[in-house]
């Protein structure tokens, strides 16, 4: 595996020089039609990262008076970073089209992470969640076609497959089967910690997005579909959130999160095809290095420890933003029948009764995901094109 080192050795932009205007934050969106789908993938992902940065720092501030002001200062910048990033999505995306893009993010980024993850159990967890998000994409694509008469591949641009994954009718599990084993902070690689922070933040954003936009739909099936999938996203947040070590201190988690943000902006800047957006990723990479340095200073001051304990050593190469079709197909073929029993992965036949009872009750008055996707087979231009031929 290729590695990188030294990305944390830069002081970045000092916090007091991290400034915005309202007009640049609410700037020109990307083109839904002419920009590469991976530009939108990076935008959605990094909005998820920034909103999770806010979430984590608010959590820390609840427990630490001394850190309230420094955290608030960084959060203010992160709020504005999140705005500038998220406002790049144009209003010609319907909420359902944006949803398709969110699932593309979940699939392509989780697949990249799963292949880079050195810890076998954690990698298994990413592959497990991946097959569920892959299935969500298929259900949403059917909904988009049958509700708005649009082709999901206009958003996906051929990078991501549109077929069933692990069927959503089997995603809903009892909470006891959603908790995963965590990495051990003393022995886990930095990249393992970064991955857990990244994917948890991304799924959190997806959950919140579905939870907010579900009620915007008039169609009762669309409303119920969002309810069903938002609930799985909450399970995913539970799952991925339990991958990190609960014995890490608040400041240690802050440090890992800032390192993750640096790593992700560096990944985005390295691969961005739109020059205007690339310049923004580079600017924010420098901002994040500034945030990381503040976090390091507080880590030294409060914990009396050297940040190198956490940040030293090489990282794998950058997260690859590209079609992970081959990997996803392999995982689908090999692991579609995996289920969970507590933190363990088991065959479908061994799924605990607690999850079966839980989902049977929820679906006892019907499952919108099944209804909207019944017999759905994608064709270029949408299923009506196939039926006409």
């Amino acid at each position, binding site marked *: 595996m290729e590695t990188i080192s030294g990305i944390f050795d830069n002081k970045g932009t000092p916090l007091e020089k991290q400034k915005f205007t309202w007009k640049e934050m609410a700037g020109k*969106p990307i083109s*839904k*039609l*002419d*920009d*590469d*789908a991976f530009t939108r993938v990076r935008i959605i992902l990094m909005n998820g990262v920034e909103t999770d940065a806010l979430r984590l720092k608010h959590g820390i501030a609840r427990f630490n008076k001394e850190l309230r002001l420094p955290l608030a200062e960084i959060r203010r910048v992160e709020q504005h970073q999140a705005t500038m990033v998220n406002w790049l999505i*144009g*209003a*010609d995306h319907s909420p359902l089209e944006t949803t398709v893009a969110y699932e593309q993010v979940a699939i392509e980024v989780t697949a990249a992470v799963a292949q880079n993850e050195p810890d076998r159990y954690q990698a298994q967890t990413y592959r497990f969640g991946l097959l569920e998000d892959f299935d969500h994409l298929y259900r949403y694509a059917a909904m988009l076609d*049958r509700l708005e008469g649009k082709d999901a*591949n*206009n*958003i996906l*641009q*051929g*990078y*991501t*497959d*549109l*077929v*069933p994954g692990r*069927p959503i009718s089997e995603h809903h599990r009892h909470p006891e089967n959603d908790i995963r084993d965590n990495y051990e902070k003393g022995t886990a690689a930095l990249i393992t910690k970064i991955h857990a922070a990244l994917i948890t933040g991304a799924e959190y954003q997806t959950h919140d997005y579905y939870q907010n936009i579900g009620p915007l739909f*008039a*169609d*009762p*099936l669309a409303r119920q579909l969002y309810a069903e999938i938002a609930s799985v996203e909450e399970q995913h947040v539970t799952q991925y959130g339990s991958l990190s070590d609960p014995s890490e201190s608040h400041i240690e988690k802050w440090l890992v999160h800032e390192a993750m943000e640096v790593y992700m902006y560096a990944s985005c800047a390295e691969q961005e095809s739109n020059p205007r957006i690339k310049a923004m990723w580079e600017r924010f990479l420098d901002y994040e290095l500034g945030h990381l340095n503040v976090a390091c200073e507080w880590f030294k001051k409060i914990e009396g420890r050297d940040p190198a304990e956490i940040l030293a050593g090489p990282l794998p190469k950058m997260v690859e933003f590209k*079609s992970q*079709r081959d990997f996803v*197909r392999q995982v*689908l073929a090999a692991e579609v029948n995996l289920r969970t029993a507590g933190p363990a992965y088991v065959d479908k036949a061994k799924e605990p009764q607690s999850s079966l009872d839980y989902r049977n009750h929820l679906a006892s008055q*019907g499952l*919108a995901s*099944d*209804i*909207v*996707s*019944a*017999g*759905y*087979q*994608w*064709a*270029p231009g949408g*299923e009506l094109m196939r039926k006409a031929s």
Partner: protein
Amino acid sequence: MAAAAKVGTNYTGVQMSPKDNKRLLDAVNDIHPDVPGDERGMLVERTERAAEADRIGSVPVPGSAKGMLKTGFDMMRGKSPEVFLDKLGERLAYERNGVRLYEAMIAKVKALDTPDTALVDTLTHIRNEEHEHMMLVHQAIETLGADPTAQTPCADVVGAMALGIVNVLTDPRTNVDQCLNALLTVELADNAAWELLIELAQAAGHPNIADSFTKAKTQEDDHLVKIKTLMRRDLIMQTK
């Protein structure tokens, strides 16, 4: 502002990435739908949900004594004055929205590289007439003793309809022709709605209101012709 359509790197179609899309089709051919059936299941479910649904809301009871009497009188004769009131509320909302749409359009036309003052004048004229129509309906609702500030169910529904139009008109990236197309949709519906409203006023026994609406209908006919002509002229000129 972007003017007419241009050729560029639009990535949305399958021809832009034939290899990726071939592999996507391979997947679709290998892995079949897991749930049997087709889209007809959605229709069955929607029918069921429609049967179970509550209404959007109600037409408010007229607040003034005069209005109460009038409503009561018509009700006793087996008529439903709330139907007419609801449609009046709809027209008021639609015209009010129309004023804002034309204001957005004027801003867009002013952003053209070559200022088209004649077009701005035409749009301003229509905008002002939409405002007059809004006030005309406002007055008619008051005459009936009803509350023109209430949002009736039909007013709410046309508000939902208008959301897409508002997005088209206010998106800085849309060009004049795309916006004229949106305004054409608005004017076509508006024209038919005024025609119907006049008939409804007569049917509800309000000939004075029907008369007062005739001028508005004539002006709406003019709006429709103007928007249609502007759009046709501009697009044909670009196409030739």
